């Protein structure tokens, strides 16, 4: 049962990684691509970590996986804003329909 849930979580994570990549390639400008990365990829990594954590019976290993995910989450959230800000400051205007 736990195996099945872990499998499902990791597969879901892979799907989000895939959609992040598709967004990176399909979206029209840097800002929209940032949306794809900052949301889809961080959640995807979280799902992969959760799946692996389910497989582990050691609480500290789970905590380590959580720590790794939190680090990527916090860095990713800040970096997205930094890139968006730098792009605006360099005169890149957001794409509009």
């Amino acid at each position, binding site marked *: 049962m736990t195996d099945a849930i872990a499998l499902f979580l990791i597969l879901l994570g892979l799907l989000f990684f895939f959609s992040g990549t598709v967004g990176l390639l399909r979206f029209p400008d840097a800002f929209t691509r940032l949306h794809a990365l900052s949301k889809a990829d961080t959640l995807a990594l979280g799902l992969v970590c959760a799946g692996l954590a389910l497989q582990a019976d050691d609480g500290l290993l789970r905590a380590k996986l959580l720590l790794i995910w939190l680090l990527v989450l916090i860095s990713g*959230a800040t970096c997205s804003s930094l890139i968006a800000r730098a792009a605006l400051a360099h005169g890149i205007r957001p794409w509009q329909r």
Partner: protein
Amino acid sequence: MDVTRATENVGMRRPLAALPALSARLIGLAAIWWVLTDGSADAWTWGIPAVIAAAALRPGLRSAGAWRWSLPGLLRFLPVFVWYSTRGALEVAILALHPRRRPDPILIGYPLQLPPGPARIFLANLINLVPGTLSTRITARSVEIHVLAATPSLMRILATLERRVADLFALDLESGPAEVRRP
């Protein structure tokens, strides 16, 4: 900026006042060391100096102000965060994978009620993880947000987030109606 500086110095003038914060910091760092070393008992000969060094060495950066957490605030914040970030990822995934849908992005200004300081930074980072929003700049009174689509629920989401962040930092907001403003 002077205000934040003043609050930062309080701890230095009254060393005892900083004691709870310091012990919380030490406990937190020790917990991380424990996780890193996988609970190894003999690692503490390295761990104790490591925790002290990590607590004592500061990078010497300007602080945005004291971080004050509130536990009930945290409990109210977490479900909202999990729900919104899942929804945010789902929405952007659907937008990316759907063969015909295209984003309709726009830059908006969201007037902030949170006072300047860590709460604002926290909110700005949070905005990057919730549905369809990406914070670009914090100005004196508002935060500039790049949104994928200006949906009706957008302002409600942002207002909810701001309230939850205020809870988390144990701050009071006088709730006024939020308005969308074009920069």
